[in-house]
């Protein structure tokens, strides 16, 4: 199985009625068990691209499809982790996590079992009956991740999931995400503007440029998935980060000027 992003272009009209190309001819594939990170300066359309892949936005042209699924395979599932977290404030942690399972129409027993399993996986045991309001930002996003994992998706989509968190929580959550990912090995598309995060998590980093948003370069991260923050990989890690920063730097400076 692989996910093909085939010639995605997205244009829209700005306030003055001019046509703006947000995304231009985006082509890439996400292989089975591959962790792909989209990175780029603000305004490069990375979140727009993720919304299109997630079926929350129509592209102007191009398509996204799953390739190589068995003919009798049910509709592929997408698990989305939102930047805004988007937990239902009126549902408890448990009821949020099992939302997708309920919509899939699973039995009560199955829902309970799976819900409990994924709550435990993200480390929320004991908080099942809490409302999102009662949790810290990091805990909320854990619930958001558990909700996406619970439906056992064919593709996991994460839209800057840790950008609302403080730097310390963010580092811890990245480590935890890696641990979780190694247990589930889901095909993943992850959007971030944080280069260190991209190098830390990705099998492949896709660097986008802006005006129009298109692929500037695709970089394979050739380091073992676990332990990239160890001393022995320091140099390699920094080289990747520097390479990506060089690619983005100019665009990011432009973005800053435009505000």
């Amino acid at each position: 199985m692989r996910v093909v992003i085939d010639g995605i272009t997205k244009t829209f009209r700005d306030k003055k009625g001019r046509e703006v190309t947000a995304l231009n001819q985006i082509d890439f594939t996400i292989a089975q068990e591959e962790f792909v990170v989209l990175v780029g300066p603000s305004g490069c359309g990375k979140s727009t691209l993720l919304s299109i892949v997630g079926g929350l936005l129509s592209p102007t042209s191009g398509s996204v499809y799953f390739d190589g699924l068995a003919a009798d395979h049910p509709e592929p599932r997408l698990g989305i982790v939102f930047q805004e977290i988007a937990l239902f404030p009126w549902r408890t942690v448990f009821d949020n996590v099992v939302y997708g399972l309920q919509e899939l129409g699973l039995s009560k027993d199955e829902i309970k079992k799976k819900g409990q399993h994924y709550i435990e996986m993200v480390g929320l045991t004991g908080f099942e009956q809490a409302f999102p309001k009662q949790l810290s930002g990091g805990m909320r996003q854990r619930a958001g991740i558990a909700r996406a994992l619970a439906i056992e998706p064919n593709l996991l989509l994460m839209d800057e999931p840790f950008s609302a968190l403080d730097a310390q929580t963010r580092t811890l959550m990245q480590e935890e995400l890696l641990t979780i990912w190694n247990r589930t090995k889901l095909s993943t598309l992850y959007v971030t503007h944080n280069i260190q995060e991209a190098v830390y998590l990705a099998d492949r980093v896709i660097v986008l440029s802006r005006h129009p948003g298109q692929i500037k370069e695709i970089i394979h991260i050739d380091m073992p998935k676990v332990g990239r923050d160890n001393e022995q990989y320091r140099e390699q890690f920094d080289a990747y980060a520097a390479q990506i920063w060089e690619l983005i730097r100019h665009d990011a400076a432009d973005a800053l000027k435009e505000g």
Partner: protein
Amino acid sequence: MEGNRKHIKNRVAFLEAKVPRYVPFVGIAALILIWELVCRLGLVAPLYLPAPTSIVAAGWELFTVGNFIQDIGASLYRIVLGYALGACVGIIIGLLLGFSRWAEALGSPIIYSLYPIPKIALLPLIVLWLGIGELPKVTIIALGVFFPVVINTFSGVKNVDPTLVKAAVSFGSNHYNVIKKVLLPGSLPVIFAGLRLAAGTSLLLLVASEMIAAGHGIGSKVLHYGNLMLTTKLMVGIAVLSLLGLLFNRSLQWLENKLLPWK
């Protein structure tokens, strides 16, 4: 050194001043006491302002000897039925208007042009259409409740975070479930504001409709005693209305706390 210390004090302590629990009752008790005194001292004739104690006595008589209970029953029946009807229809229509752009484009001009009409002005028309039975009274109350509820529900739905709708859809919700599981709970706080607004309106319309055409009911009794200059009994009716309003508000508060534990 000791003499040089300047302590910094909390200058916003008044924001979190603690008030003993009995204070709210003191205000009411004082008001009733002054009222009683004014009457006892003969400053105002009982015809214009009967003393609280005589109102209580008259009330006891009306409830035990008279059939005031029947009147309250008739009024309760009308208001509960009308309110429930108006609220349910209002919530359903409000959800649909908020959910579907088509429904909004079609329906909201109609709602907004009918909303400003004082419902009391429709009373003669409704009596003309539906006669003087229970139906016109329930209808006018339902109408009065419908508008604030429909408009609040609508704006509540519009204020639900669109990301939540996206989240629901991405986890497999169909349109019906988006309404039931996201838009309804998400707009419930604003719906309750509408329901509380409507509670006052419904009491007003209850009394008005009973004054126009009814044999039973608190409103008709208030008008009746007023015409006979039986001020004390009139005041019993008013006191019952005040208690009814209080009870109404309290029940809504209770329901809100029950339904919105996440707030």
